[in-house]
């Protein structure tokens, strides 16, 4: 074998004529490889998803690091259109093409936060503190304002003093469980983006 250091080795094998370079190395028995360097995405995990923006619902392929091992946190590094998808056939618009920047936006929320009455700032709180407080506020409001019967004496069982807006980019499963829970409280002021 020709004597060369590691840097020289990469330099040679990195040329477009990989097969002849390998011949130079004296190991050219395997089938020719017509690539300059290994395609980076090939070593990443591919996950199928759909674009969260408009309702064309383009198929997207997300490429991430992390092999599922306990200490390897998956992180999405690249997103492109799914060529198998019958609607978008691999294409994406200027919004879909920027999806990876949405996932990794510096303006993603990271912790539960609390803004006290009259305050001009957020305070970081724990999930338990946040959820306990929400449950307390909702239950107290419901107990104080629930209407069991209307003026005519008909059973109406409604709670009108807390309202909710649901997300129309959330999944069906989120939507379903949200509806199931919120309606069980007797709430009526309940809408999603379809209203606007």
């Amino acid at each position, binding site marked *: 074998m020709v004597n060369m250091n590691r840097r020289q080795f990469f330099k040679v094998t990195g040329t477009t004529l990989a097969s002849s370079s390998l011949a130079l190395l004296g190991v050219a028995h395997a089938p020719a490889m017509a690539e300059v360097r290994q395609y980076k995405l090939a070593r990443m995990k591919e996950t199928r998803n*759909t674009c*969260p923006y*408009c309702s064309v619902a383009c198929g997207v392929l997300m490429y991430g690091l992390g092999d599922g091992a306990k200490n390897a946190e998956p992180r999405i590094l690249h997103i492109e259109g799914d060529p198998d998808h019958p609607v978008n056939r691999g294409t*994406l618009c200027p919004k879909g093409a920027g999806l990876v920047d949405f996932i990794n936006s510096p*303006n993603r929320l990271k912790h539960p936060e609390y803004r006290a009455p009259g305050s001009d700032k957020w305070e970081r709180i724990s999930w338990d503190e946040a959820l306990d407080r929400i449950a307390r506020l909702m239950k107290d409001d*419901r107990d104080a304002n629930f209407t069991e019967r209307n003026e005519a004496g008909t059973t109406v069982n409604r709670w*009108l003093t807390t309202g909710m807006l*649901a997300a129309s980019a959330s999944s069906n499963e989120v939507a*379903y469980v949200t509806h199931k829970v919120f309606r069980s409280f007797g709430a009526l002021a309940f809408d999603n983006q379809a209203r606007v």
Partner: protein
Amino acid sequence: MTNHWVDIKNADVILIMGGNAAEAHPCGFKWVTEAKAHNKAKLIVVDPRFTRSASVADFYAPIRTGTDIVFLGGVIRYLLENDKIQHEYVHNYTDFSFIVREDFDFKDGIYSGYNEATRKYDQSSWDYELGEDGYVKTDPTLQHPRSVYQLLKQHYSRYTPEMVESVCGTPRDKFLKVCEMLASTATKDRAGTIMYALGWTQHTIGSQMIRTGAMMQLLLGNIGIAGGGMNALRGHSNIQGLTDLGLMSNLLPGYLTLPSDSDTSYQTYLARRAHQPLRPNQLSYWRNYGKFHVSLMKAWWGDAATPENDWAYDYLPKMDKQYDMLQAYELMDQGQMHGYICQGFNPLAAAPYKAKLLRSFSKLKYMVIMDPLVTETSEFWRNYGEHNDVDSSQIQTEVIRLPTTCFAEEEGALVSSGRWLQWHWKGAEPPGEGKSDIEIMSSIYQRIRALYEKEGGAYPDPILNLYWPYSNPKNPTAAELAKEINGRALVDLRDPSDPSKVLRRAGEQLSGFGELRDDGTTNSGCWIYTGSWTAAGNMMARRDNSDPTGIGQTLNWAWSWPANRRVLYNAASCDPTGKPFNPRRSLVHWNGKTWGGADTPDYKLDEDPANGMGPFIMNPEGVARFFARKGLAEGPFPVHYEPFETPLGYNPLHPENKLAVSNPAARVFEQDLAMMGTVENFPHVATTYRLTEHFHYWTKHVKLNAILQPEQFVEIGEALAQELGIAHGERVRVSSNRGYIKAVAVVTKRIKALTIEGKTTHQVGIPLHWGFVGLAKPGFLANTLTPSVGDGNTYTPEFKSFLVKVEKA
């Protein structure tokens, strides 16, 4: 969409009106390009602006925002006058021959039964005349003066090309050219489709605009056929799913409706909804309402929903009125609403009249935010200078903000505009401590439930008895929920005609809504989704993209509601003997014994169409309606009303009637009405819209998109710019009676001044994507300007037509 994205390739004529697909739905618009390239299709765009869709159209016609009913009513008149209708279709599949009640009336812009004080109609006269047999009377000769055909013809007789030119500002020759192109699809071998979006929805007469488009399509025989339909291009990735699942003040999943105070018993509730046929031998599919409803109650309250308690009827809240967003903000402003939860929703940016929203939110006791991103709503209490000039110390609202996962960090199904339920998979963990909305909602529920167990409180039964069979009660899996949405057998289901035969074992997933029962032996969280996760597995995750007929029907890709049907009303693509009108583009057909073809037939599978069953099986008439009966708040035939902020001050079709200037049945509150501007102070007509580089108020947080469109701008025409002395790139101030924004002026040839009722009228374009948080340059929320008034049916605000004044900043 009645049809779906790929099916657009089958169209011969495409009308984009009330939308701008090339910009807002670019990858779906590709199918328009496909139709043009391979089907010689012609694209027509009608829009106030020469949009990106218009730039690739075969024909473009301008229109004044808010006047689409005049335009489309004019098309209907043209089709009737010139006999450009699909006769066999219209005569057999619509209510043309039906007789309307004698007391029905329409006088100078107002229908019979109007109450000015309540802004509502008594709709009892808006109906068909019934014979002694209980069926609607008909006159197949169409000569009866009260036949729907005669009433329709008379109603639109005044929507002449001259009227269109004067009210819409569309030159007469351009309007007639559009009529001619659309009319070419009245033949059996040609298909025309309409693609629309919020440019139709966001008007006080939005529902009626859409309906006028649908009526035009019926005349042309374009509903139910490949390359046809009424195609709403929905704006959010799962806005269709959330609507299907009933997350609206008045709905339950699957377009079931909440009971109102007057539904004093389950029996009354059911009788009003389980419609019986109005003509002989009609399927009238809603008569199965009880099966869908009882299955839902079993999915929500399990063993606590029994025949004895009318399937937990009292667990459902009863409505005394609508509690839509506009009503919610009115209640907050009056101090009658104390808490507000925003899950992935940014109402300060997305709802009209920002000043009122700020006032309303500031009166809340508490607000809860769940979102992957920072939103303006979550920081409404924070001072951002001119863009959000508030005094934090004066706002006593407690705000709790929770970080959630985004699409890449969760699995589940989203429903596309074409009604496809597509499963997606999780690829990463959320940053920081983010949690999924499923876990958050379940955790809140578990805590409130525990509080009721411990402390008692107001009517705890529906909370304590909520059916919650999930393996981790604080975090059900998407699969568990998806299976519950589909539904399963609760006991062995036996064949009613042969009880020895078990059709479905207890616990097995159901394969379709035909298996649902009203005796409590099945459950299903959303009947129209039954079939999405069957005993064979997750149908929504299927990825076979083959299209064996070449007509664009990939039946094994994902799953479409209802029943994996891709084109709604597809039996209307066949003549009354079940033969396709257009054999070249056949969706389904009757083979003498059964229905079959390239799609799941929208019909009773073993029914010979010669027996007269209509293809509109959800309607008790079996046919499609020109006469909407009591279906819409404003009346059975669409009427043009001016936007609430009108540049005219009168309705050119009913100039003498003050009641008929703007929608007499619109959603409006007194104090909001008082805030409407007039043309004397705000002389320019404004409309809002999206840009292709941005998605609402999200992508200003996304680096790439913040770079592509960094700064807020408004579009004004050259004539207006010259009149006001504004140069391209200068800053302008745009104000309405509710506030102002400042932005860069883009002076463009894309918006031309129109002549309306003899006067020059300028239109102003206001893209909506900026706000006071994000990576893009800070800007003003466009909804600072918009009026708080809604459509009479959907209560959707009038974001697309209002009055402003443009001046140098």
